[in-house]
């Protein structure tokens, strides 16, 4: 809760500092405050406090996920310097919007009342609509913004419609009261419709099939750091929020919607992985890769127990860390060459072995090759699913892991080929290096000692 307040204040402060044309110097303020935010947030671990007449509830689940969200955002601010260091325009508004969006994401993982969820969803989304179009001279960026806004507005409307139906069936917005209302008695049919609409709208933010069509275009058009933000923070928040709602309110009646979710999961996995195979643009590749990871995370929502919560948390951490490394390296290469295709990685191992090594760690972790964090993310999800009786889904997911390995290796292959794409020197900022080192080492450590992040929830 402290973190929520501090971050809101920070956002307003950064916005006002735009008056002084400090540009990237505001990062000196932002990053330490965010790091302090992580610690203040983690400090509330175990308190289980509720605020605002139980609108939000900071239990261990909320604390763990919000710490992860703040950490991811901090790392993304580390990438911002590389992206905006030569920007002539003010950047404070962009930074402030990112922080506001983070605040929304934190509300989404800590809500205890559906009104709070929708507030969080909107606080997170509205800044993102602006951020997606923040590269104003670029047509693609404008397209991304418009597409994201129209589709996102639809999705919000669908979530709200689902909420009203749930309210109609249970007579409450409060999660525990909904739980009490649905257990035992026979439920009206609108409840099922309401739940499905709610799931659909949330999956839009998480970019799962069949609500994924916006993702490749929006990822491609948005500025790279914003893409990284969408791929990590937004996805994590959407999944954690959905999981929380389902777990607390509807764990007892999962039979109502589980079959449809199984179909969505399988479709997400296959469609994303097959589409990713033929991508030549890095951001579109990451979009489809992100959709496929949404498929794996959906398995946790199928299982819906404490094991799955733990697994989802671990998966989100490993996915976020690896994705940030990948985007960080891409950002450097893009700045050096000015292009977006996968070809720019060609010969990276000769030009900059350090970055090539980071790329290896990031992509093998995303592919789920042991002993990197990504493997244990998948491992925990799969074991919880087998114990929950979803063996078929796990086998399908494992087949998809193989398909996924192909396109991740394709990128690695570029980095290790003999021909060099561009002779321009690859320069990166110390801050970016620090982010890559931190995330890559985190990925390695979690791969060797996955027990470190177990049992937080």
């Amino acid at each position, binding site marked *: 809760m402290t973190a929520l307040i501090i971050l809101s204040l920070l956002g307003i402060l950064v916005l006002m500092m735009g008056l002084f044309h400090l540009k990237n110097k505001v990062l000196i303020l932002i990053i330490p405050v965010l790091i302090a935010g992580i610690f203040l947030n983690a400090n509330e671990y175990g308190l289980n406090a509720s605020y605002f007449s139980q609108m939000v509830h900071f239990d261990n689940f909320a604390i763990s996920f919000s710490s992860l969200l703040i950490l991811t955002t901090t790392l993304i601010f580390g990438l911002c310097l590389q992206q905006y260091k030569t920007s002539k325009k003010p950047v404070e508004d962009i930074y402030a919007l990112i922080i506001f969006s983070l605040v929304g994401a934190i509300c989404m993982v800590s809500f205890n009342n559906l009104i709070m969820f929708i507030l969080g969803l909107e606080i997170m989304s509205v800044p993102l609509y602006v951020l997606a179009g923040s590269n104003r001279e670029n047509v693609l960026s404008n397209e991304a913004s418009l597409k994201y806004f129209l589709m996102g507005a639809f999705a919000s409307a669908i979530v709200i419609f689902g909420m009203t139906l749930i309210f109609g069936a249970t007579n409450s917005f409060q999660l525990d009261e909904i739980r009490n209302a649905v257990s035992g008695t026979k439920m009206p049919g609108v409840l099922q419709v309401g739940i499905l609409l709610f799931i659909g709208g949330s999956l839009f933010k998480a970019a799962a099939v069949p609500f994924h069509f916006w993702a490749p275009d929006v990822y491609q058009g948005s500025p790279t750091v914003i893409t990284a933000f969408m791929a990590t923070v937004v996805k994590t928040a959407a999944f954690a929020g959905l999981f929380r709602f389902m777990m607390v309110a509807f764990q007892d009646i999962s039979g109502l919607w589980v079959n449809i979710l199984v179909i969505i999961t399988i479709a997400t996995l296959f469609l994303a992985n097959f589409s990713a195979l033929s991508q030549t643009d890095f951001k579109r590749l990451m979009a489809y890769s992100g959709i496929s990871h949404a498929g794996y995370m959906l398995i946790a929502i199928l299982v819906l127990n404490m094991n799955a919560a*733990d697994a989802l948390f671990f998966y989100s951490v490993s996915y976020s860390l690896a994705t940030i490394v990948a985007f960080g390296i891409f950002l450097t290469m893009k700045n050096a060459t000015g292009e977006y295709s996968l070809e720019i990685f060609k010969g990276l191992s000769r030009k900059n072995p350090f970055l090539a090594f980071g790329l290896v760690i990031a992509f093998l972790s995303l592919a789920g090759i*042991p002993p990197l964090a990504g493997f244990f993310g998948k491992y925990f999800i*799969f074991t919880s699913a087998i114990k929950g009786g979803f063996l078929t889904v796990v086998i399908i997911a*494992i087949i998809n892991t*193989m398909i996924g390995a192909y396109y991740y290796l*394709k990128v690695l*292959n570029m980095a290790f080929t003999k021909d060099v794409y561009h002779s321009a020197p690859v320069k990166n900022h110390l801050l970016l290096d620090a982010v890559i080192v931190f995330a890559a080492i985190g990925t390695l450590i979690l791969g060797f000692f996955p*027990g470190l992040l177990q049992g937080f929830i």
Partner: protein
Amino acid sequence: MISLSLLLLILPLVFSVITGFLSGKNARASAMAGALINLVVAGYAFTQFEANTSYQFAFLSDWIPSIRAKFHIGIDGINLLLILLTNLLLPVIIYTVKHEDSNRSGLYYGLILFMQFALLGVFMALDALLYYIFWELALIPIYLILLGFSSQPDFKTFVKFFIYTLAGSLFMFIAILYVYIKAPGGNFSIDNFYNNHLSEQEQVWVFLGFFIAYAIKIPIIPFHTWQPDTYTKASTPGTMLLSGVMLKMGTFSLLRWLLPVAPLALATVTPVVIILCIIGIVYGSIIAIRQKNIKTLFAYSSLAHVGLISAGVFALNADGFNGALIQMFNHGIIIVGLFLIAEIIYTRTETYHISELGGIRNEAPTLAFTFLIIILASVALPLTNGFVGEFLLLNGVFQYNQWMAVVGGTTVILSATYMLRMYQRTMLGLDRDYTKTILDLGTVEKIMVLGLVLIIIVTGIWPSILLDPIKPAVENLLNIIKIVQ
């Protein structure tokens, strides 16, 4: 006192990291030092090893408490020879790395040592999850070695290799998870996996999951299609790692994990598997006869030899098991010797093509002589180590089924055909353009080649130094399988 097995495992990792930061000659020196130090430790462990069934020099500690996975490694009769083999071959492999690419050589040597770390982990792991991690971990360095340092880098070939082996491993992963969840102990320890109390039907599925992974890695027909291309296109150190040590991961795992974990399935599946292995022997040998490139020829000969090793394993008797373990060691020594000679010839003539070579004996008698001994070991001439292994293996297969032994025994005749024919055409006859000025072995080359030849002859004349330590473990393994059956 740190346990020997942990020391053996950690040293390559430490040296790998150190070497990764060096370049040029420093990297080479550091890598060689690491390999030699580990060899000394492994040799010491070998002499201290007592011939019994326990896991010696073991190291056990908690790893992931929430799923009861433990970090448990140790040495017993089953993995002893492979650990020795890995450490023996590493100096040779490091020696064959070319000097040209000196600005990235730290990475190259680092990856090779990292590979050693992963391989030793696979051999020593006594916890199924740990084993699986090392198994997959071994794939990363070898893939990067193939991609970054091959003479003919070819994404299609290498990605086929990677996806193929990864696909196999994932089936094994499902099987491991299944046993972990169903077995009464609820953990990944090897004892729990051996006493899993699964029904026969379940064990057949578990068997298939494990078997696909191993069949691809070994490779057993029809899962071998990745192998010849990968061997030919890889750099020589990469080929040596693949053929000398990495494919033993598969044959070793048959004995360590597959048979004792799914013994009830054996009655159903063994006939099919043995027939596949025998087909591999004949198929590999016949194709080898037609090869024009030395490296491809060795690749197919390797297919035939490991076919026989797997057939011996599935014969399920003491001779088969002993033969398989001995022959894994011998085959590693022989095939690395062959690739080493091929590499030596290549650095002097820049060709692997048999038709372009000839008359090397006239200019380089030592090279020709040592090559002959290695080739004779490969065709299993008595008094070489190849004979001991193949004799035991064929004997084991014979006890299982005489006709299969007859068909499998053709490997000796066929390998003599292609090996001696190749020898005749490259070493004997008149000088060719490529070989007119060929130099004989240098000092370091002599040490390497003669070292391998010495091992070939000593273990050929006196096989009991290898056989005695492993016998109790083999008998114990047979008991485990028989009791459950």
